[in-house]
């Protein structure tokens, strides 16, 4: 089919000649290329953020011991210099991690995963590639802004990476960048451009501008460029979820921009937005006027960062509502209730931010208010998850790789969501705050939750990107270690967290014997399993650190098949038989594969709802949105009877 696209492109190249490589793949205004740019950049950042996490896990499990392979890396030319500049210069002389490096890794892991990994891949990547196809239009409403959006994002990524190389190294104050700590650490640095914090803030300002442009584009496109017949309630849920996500980005990011600008002003101009009167460091009064408040920063930050959590999870739901009905061969259950839930969720997500701040002493009334809204918001989330589960009911499920990831998402997200409920209450949060319990909860939502959904999306739309399938065996080799690794990492966190392990211990709790010194059935089990393999694992809470690090290692190994699969399948995967290999119903499958410039070879018209699977009386078990009657029009635009001899190639 790709040949057809090319011919078609040439035939229609009346007013412009074939663009060169740069125009086509680098400075491209085509939504599909931009989507791929975003997606690939996001995947790279995910990998990098994951690597930072591996270093941290080493230090937690084996504090004070030299990081393996450092000596080897220090002997490789070129890599050696890069490694030295980014990490090596902070290591202890014997090659072990210290607290400062651990803090840098922690802060950058959070920042990169959230702002440079998942949002670009999950939101920007998928929405750019899939959404215009699903609503049957030729491109986004503002293609040039779309290109600008990617390049703003690219600049912000470069700036963020550059912060590894400046004098102080990257920030050490967590991805939340709380003032006054963030503003006053290493205050001795008079040249602010040698400070990682300055670069973090500058990078965030670019990142926010990028997501602003992207979200304006997405919303305007969905409002104004839907195909003929595609009413709001005929729109695939994918587009609804992305629509809401774009609104979250549009309206929640500006307060973070404010927070970043004010903090930048504190750092660069010496103002005191977030610095209270009488602040001291190292026994000395700082040279500041005071009069500000750290609480202001937290309010502005969490006003973004709570909706941001939904920005992370809604693209996952968006993808699953395409993957699950398609592979269960069943309509999406409760489409309308899902739409209303996601709208409610979007609105409520702006009203719950301060449940991250119970410990700040912001006041009883505020706490009460935020407890109520926080409990309320779990209702629409549960509706979304339940609808997806019921969609499986009575389906004839195809367990291909994307469906494995999608079905693993459901219980994993369930665990993440349910463990969040106790944290909604301020009295429980007093004990749990900043422990590993919170880390476990959050990571269950985004790591085996969102990231699994993103993998499902990659496997699902890969044939549309490239015209070839990804290998299913390698896919399964990717899925099972990932599932095992994720659970080995995050499940013990709940136990450790309830035991009181603080999230920022670079030694994993070794020096806190009152907390780490006692046993639990899980530690005894670990001890015995270790003994079976001839390993001396202590029978106390510290043993769980080793379990988690082993889990991280398994997870790392599990990604190798994916990377191989991804790159080799582009040229060497099994060819997709036709333009709609999964037998899906939404309009992106009505385009040639891969879609050429302008996407559709005919004017798509939506004749019915997006999830018409297993319609009784229909010759095949799916009835696509764009078909006025069975098999017409075909994706190449022809519906003349003479050309429909293989109209029944769909399975």
């Amino acid at each position, binding site marked *: 089919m790709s040949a057809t696209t090319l011919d078609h492109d040439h035939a229609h190249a009346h007013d412009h000649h074939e663009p060169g490589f740069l125009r086509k793949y680098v400075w491209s205004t085509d939504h599909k290329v931009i989507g791929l740019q975003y997606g690939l950049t996001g995947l790279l950042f995910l990998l990098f953020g994951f690597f930072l996490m591996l270093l941290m896990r080493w230090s937690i499990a084996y504090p004070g011991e030299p990081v393996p392979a450092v000596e080897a890396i220090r002997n490789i030319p070129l890599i050696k210099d890069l490694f030295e500049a980014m990490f090596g210069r902070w290591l202890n002389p014997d090659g072990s991690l210290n607290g400062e490096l651990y803090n840098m890794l922690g802060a950058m892991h959070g920042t990169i995963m959230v702002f440079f990994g998942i949002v670009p891949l999950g939101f920007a990547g998928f929405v750019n590639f899939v959404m215009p196809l699903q609503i049957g239009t030729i491109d986004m409403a503002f293609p040039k802004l779309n290109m600008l959006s990617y390049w703003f994002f690219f600049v912000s990524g470069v700036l963020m990476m550059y912060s590894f190389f400046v004098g102080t190294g990257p920030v050490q104050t967590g991805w939340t960048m709380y003032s006054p700590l963030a503003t006053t650490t290493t205050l001795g640095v008079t040249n602010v451009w040698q400070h990682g914090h300055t670069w973090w803030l500058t990078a965030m300002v670019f990142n926010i501008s990028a997501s602003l442009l992207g979200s304006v584009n997405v919303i305007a496109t969905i409002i104004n460029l839907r195909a003929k017949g595609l009413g709001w309630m005929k729109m695939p849920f994918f587009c609804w979820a992305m629509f809401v996500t774009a609104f979250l980005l549009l*309206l929640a990011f500006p307060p973070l921009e404010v927070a970043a600008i004010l903090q930048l002003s504190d750092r660069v101009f010496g103002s005191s937005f977030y610095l209270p*009167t009488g602040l001291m460091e190292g026994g000395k009064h700082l040279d500041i006027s005071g009069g500000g408040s750290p609480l202001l920063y937290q*309010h502005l930050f969490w006003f973004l960062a709570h909706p941001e959590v939904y920005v992370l999870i809604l693209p996952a739901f968006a993808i699953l509502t395409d993957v699950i009905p398609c592979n269960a061969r069943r309509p999406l259950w409760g489409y309308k209730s899902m739409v209303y839930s996601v709208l409610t969720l979007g609105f409520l997500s702006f009203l719950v931010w*301060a449940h991250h701040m119970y410990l700040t002493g*912001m*006041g*009883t*009334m505020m706490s009460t*208010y935020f407890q109520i809204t926080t409990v309320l918001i779990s209702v629409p989330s549960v509706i979304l998850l339940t609808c997806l589960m019921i969609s499986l009911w009575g389906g004839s499920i195809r367990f291909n790789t994307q469906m494995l990831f999608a079905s693993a998402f459901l219980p994993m997200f369930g665990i993440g969501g349910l463990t969040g409920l106790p944290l909604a209450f301020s009295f429980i949060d007093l004990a749990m705050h900043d422990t590993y319990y919170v880390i476990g909860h959050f990571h269950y939502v985004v790591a085996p939750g969102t990231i699994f959904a993103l993998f499902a999306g990659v496997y699902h739309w890969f044939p549309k990107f490239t015209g070839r399938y990804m290998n299913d065996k390698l896919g399964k080799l990717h899925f099972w270690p990932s599932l095992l690794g994720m659970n080995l990492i995050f499940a013990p966190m709940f136990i450790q967290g309830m035991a009181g392990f603080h999230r920022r211990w670079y030694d994993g709790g070794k020096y806190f014997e009152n907390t780490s010194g006692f046993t639990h059935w899980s530690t005894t089990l670990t001890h015995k399993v270790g003994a079976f393999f001839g390993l001396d694992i202590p029978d106390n809470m510290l043993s769980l650190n080793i379990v988690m690090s082993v889990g991280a290692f398994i997870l790392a190994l599990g990604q190798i098949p994916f990377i191989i699969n991804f790159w080799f399948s582009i040229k060497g995967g099994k060819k997709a038989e036709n333009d709609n290999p999964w037998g899906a119903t939404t309009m992106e499958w009505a385009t040639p594969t891969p879609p050429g410039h302008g996407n559709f070879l005919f004017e798509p018209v939506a004749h019915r709802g997006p999830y018409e699977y297993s319609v009784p009386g229909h010759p095949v078990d799916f009835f696509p949105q764009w078909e006025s009657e069975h098999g017409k029009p075909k994706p190449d635009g022809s519906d003349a009877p003479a050309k429909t001899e293989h109209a029944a190639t769909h399975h």
Partner: protein
Amino acid sequence: MSDNIEEIQKSIKKYLIIGALLIVFTVITVWLSYVELPTHGLNILVGMIVATFKASLVALIFMHLNHEKSVIYKTLVFTVVLVFVLFVLFYFSKMDPLVFDGFYKLSE
């Protein structure tokens, strides 16, 4: 906004009148700020009411919000609600009626 030529011709006069009104109200704002009301809080309240009135003139007439399409109204209502939430919650986190003293008062 209408594409009707006659209506646009009529509205030109309206724009000039609104511009003049805005200037008049600016003078009033400045004058009001020097009037010593019983508390300074009242000064702020009155000043903000005048400013809101001026702002709504700009939004309704200059920005044509007096006759716009429903999609835009929906977006803006949502945004304004959120801004209001932001103001109110920021206010209450400093002025909690259940806990009167702020946490960073120097006086104590």
